[in-house]
C-alpha cells in the first residue's frame, strides 16, 4: 500500500535510466579490460619492435596469445614468455627488456626447464607484479636485481645461486655459485654443524634437521627479536634475513639458543644463509639429469649390511657415525672436546659409561662433568641414543688405542 503511494513515475524513470546506463558503462569497461590485458600491451610493442628492427615478415608471423612453457614433469607452467618474447631468438640479443634473447645457458635448456626453476617468481601469473612474485603470500619472489638491492647486494644475480644449489646441492665448486661455494667450504672446513644438526641424514640429534630447511615456511620462524632491527635497517622481513641474523649472532635471534657463537664475516653469514635457503626438496625429472649422473639419483639408500665386525671395528664405526669424531680425537689433540687418548685409564669406567650414555644429564648433576663443561667453553656434548652394547663398543675402541701406544 505504501509502495503505491510512494511510486513516482517521473522520478523512478530517471533511476532506471541511471542504473541501467551505469551497468552498461561497467560492462563496457570490463570488456575493454578483458580485450586489453597487460601481456597484450607487451606483445603489441614486441610486434612493432620486430617490424622496425628485424623484418616485416617476422612481425606478421607473430600471433597474439598467452604463451607458455608447459612442463608437466616439473609440475610447472611458466607463462613468463608471454611478455619475455624474444627469449628463444638469438637475433634479439641486443633487444631491450623484456624482449631480449636469453643468454646461452648450456647445458641447461629453457625449453626443458622453464623460467621459474632458476629465477623464482610466479610462473602462471599474467600480470607483471604477480608474475615477479612481488605480492603477499607468494613466497618465491623473482631473484633479480630488485630483490638483491633490497638486501644490499651489488651483484644482480647473486640470489639466484640459491636456486642453482637446490638441484646442485651435491656438486662442489661450480662456477657462478660463489656464495654457495663459500658456504659449502665453511660447512666442510669447520664441520661443527653436524655435531648437533642432521644434514643429509648424518649428524647429531640435538638441534633441528637441516636437510630441507629451505622448505620451512616463514611463519614457523620467530622474528620477534629481530623485527625492529630489520624494519629499521630497511631489510626485508624474510627467512633469508632471519638466517643471516642467526648466523651473525644466534642468541640475538633465539635467546635460549644452544648454538655456539662463531664469528663470521657478513659475507660468510650471507653465504651460509643462502645455503640454508637452497636446501629444499626437489624431485628432478630424469630428463634433466645428465646421462653420466643418472645412476646416482635417487641416492642409493644402502642399508648397513650386517657384517660380522669385531667389537673394536664396531666401536670405530659408531665413533664416526654417531658424531663423536666431530669434536673428539683419540691422540690427535684437543678440538671442540677433549682428546680421548688414555681416557679409559684416567677416568672411572662407570663414569665413562654414564658420560657416553647421557652427557646432558651428567653435565647438570655430576661435579666432574660440570667442571669439564665449564672448561670447554660451555659447549655441551649432545646425547645420542645408544644401547649399552654400543657404549661398550665405543669404550673398547678408545681402549684399543692404549695398547697401540704401549
Amino acid at each position, binding site marked *: 500500500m505504501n509502495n503505491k503511494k510512494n511510486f513516482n513515475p517521473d522520478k523512478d524513470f530517471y533511476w532506471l535510466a541511471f542504473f541501467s546506463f551505469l*551497468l552498461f558503462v561497467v*560492462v563496457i569497461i570490463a570488456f575493454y579490460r578483458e580485450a586489453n590485458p597487460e601481456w597484450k600491451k607487451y606483445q603489441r610493442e614486441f610486434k612493432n619492435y620486430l617490424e622496425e628492427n628485424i623484418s616485416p615478415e617476422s612481425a606478421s608471423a607473430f600471433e597474439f596469445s598467452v604463451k607458455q612453457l608447459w612442463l608437466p614433469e616439473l609440475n610447472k607452467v611458466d607463462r613468463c614468455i608471454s611478455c619475455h618474447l624474444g627469449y628463444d631468438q638469438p637475433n634479439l640479443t641486443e633487444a631491450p627488456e623484456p624482449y631480449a634473447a636469453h643468454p646461452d645457458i648450456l647445458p641447461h635448456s629453457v625449453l626443458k626447464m622453464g623460467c621459474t626453476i632458476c629465477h623464482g617468481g610466479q610462473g602462471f601469473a599474467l600480470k607483471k607484479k604477480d608474475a615477479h612474485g612481488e605480492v603477499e603470500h607468494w613466497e618465491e619472489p623473482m631473484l633479480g636485481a630488485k630483490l638483491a638491492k633490497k638486501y644490499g647486494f651489488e651483484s644482480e644475480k647473486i640470489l639466484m645461486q640459491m636456486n642453482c644449489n637446490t638441484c646442485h646441492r651435491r656438486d662442489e665448486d661450480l662456477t657462478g655459485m660463489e656464495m654457495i661455494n663459500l658456504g659449502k667450504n665453511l660447512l666442510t672446513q669447520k664441520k661443527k654443524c653436524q655435531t648437533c644438526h642432521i644434514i643429509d641424514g648424518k649428524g647429531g640429534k640435538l638441534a633441528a634437521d637441516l636437510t630441507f630447511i629451505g622448505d620451512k615456511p616463514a611463519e614457523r620462524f620467530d622474528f620477534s627479536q629481530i623485527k625492529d632491527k630489520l624494519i629499521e635497517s630497511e631489510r626485508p622481513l624474510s627467512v633469508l634475513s632471519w638466517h643471516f641474523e642467526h648466523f651473525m649472532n644466534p642468541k640475538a635471534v633465539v635467546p635460549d639458543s644452544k648454538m655456539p657463537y662463531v664469528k663470521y664475516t657478513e659475507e660468510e653469514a650471507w653465504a651460509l644463509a643462502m645455503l640454508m635457503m637452497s636446501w629444499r626438496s626437489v624431485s628432478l625429472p630424469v630428463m634433466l639429469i645428465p646421462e653420466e649422473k643418472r645412476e646416482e639419483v635417487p641416492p642409493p639408500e644402502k642399508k648397513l649390511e650386517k657384517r660380522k665386525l669385531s667389537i673394536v671395528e664396531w666401536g670405530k664405526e659408531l665413533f664416526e657415525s654417531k658424531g663423536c669424531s666431530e669434536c673428539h680425537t683419540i691422540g690427535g689433540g684437543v678440538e671442540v672436546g677433549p682428546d680421548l687418548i688414555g681416557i679409559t685409564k684416567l677416568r672411572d669406567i662407570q663414569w665413562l659409561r654414564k658420560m657416553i650414555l647421557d652427557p646432558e644429564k651428567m653435565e647438570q648433576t655430576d661435579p666432574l662433568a660440570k667442571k669439564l663443561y665449564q672448561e670447554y667453553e660451555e659447549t655441551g656434548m649432545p646425547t645420542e641414543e645408544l644401547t649399552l652394547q654400543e657404549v661398550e663398543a665405543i669404550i673398547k675402541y678408545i681402549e684399543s688405542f692404549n695398547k697401540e701406544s704401549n
Partner: protein
Amino acid sequence: MKENERKITRRFFFGVLGKTSIIVALLAEAIGAIKAFIPKVLYEPPSKFKIGKPEDIPEGITFLPQHRLYIFRNNDDFHAISAVCTHLKCIVDWKPDQREFYCPCHGSIFSQAGINLTGPAPKPLPWYPLSLAPDGNLVIDSSKQVKPDYKYSL
C-alpha cells in the same frame, strides 16, 4: 517541426537510454559468459613446437615419438605427416619395404603420402605445415593442416 520536438520529452529520452543500455549490457554479459567457456590457454603440449635444426634431421623418413609424427626429408625439402591413425589413434608403423604406413591395431594401411588405402581408417593422415624459427629450429604447427603436396624448402 514543433510537433516533432515536443515528442522527445525528457522522460522519453531517459526511457530509451535506460532500456537500450540494459539490453546491450545484458547481451554483452551473455557473450562474456559464453566466452568464459573457451580457454585462452590449456595445460597441454603446445600445438606449435620445435623439432630441431634442419641439418640434424636425417635424409628420408624419421619418426619423432615425442610428437607422434613422421618427418620426411628430401635434400632441402621437408614435410611432416601425423603418425596417429585416423581410426582409433594408434601409432602407425612405417614399412620401408612396402613404402606404406601400417596400423598395428586394425590393419589400416596408408600410402607414403598418408592416403588411407585399406582398413577401417576413414580419413588420410593429416599433413602439418612447417616453418623456421628465428633460432634456426624447424617448427611444426599441428593446429593447422596442409594439402598432401605441401613442401617446405629451406
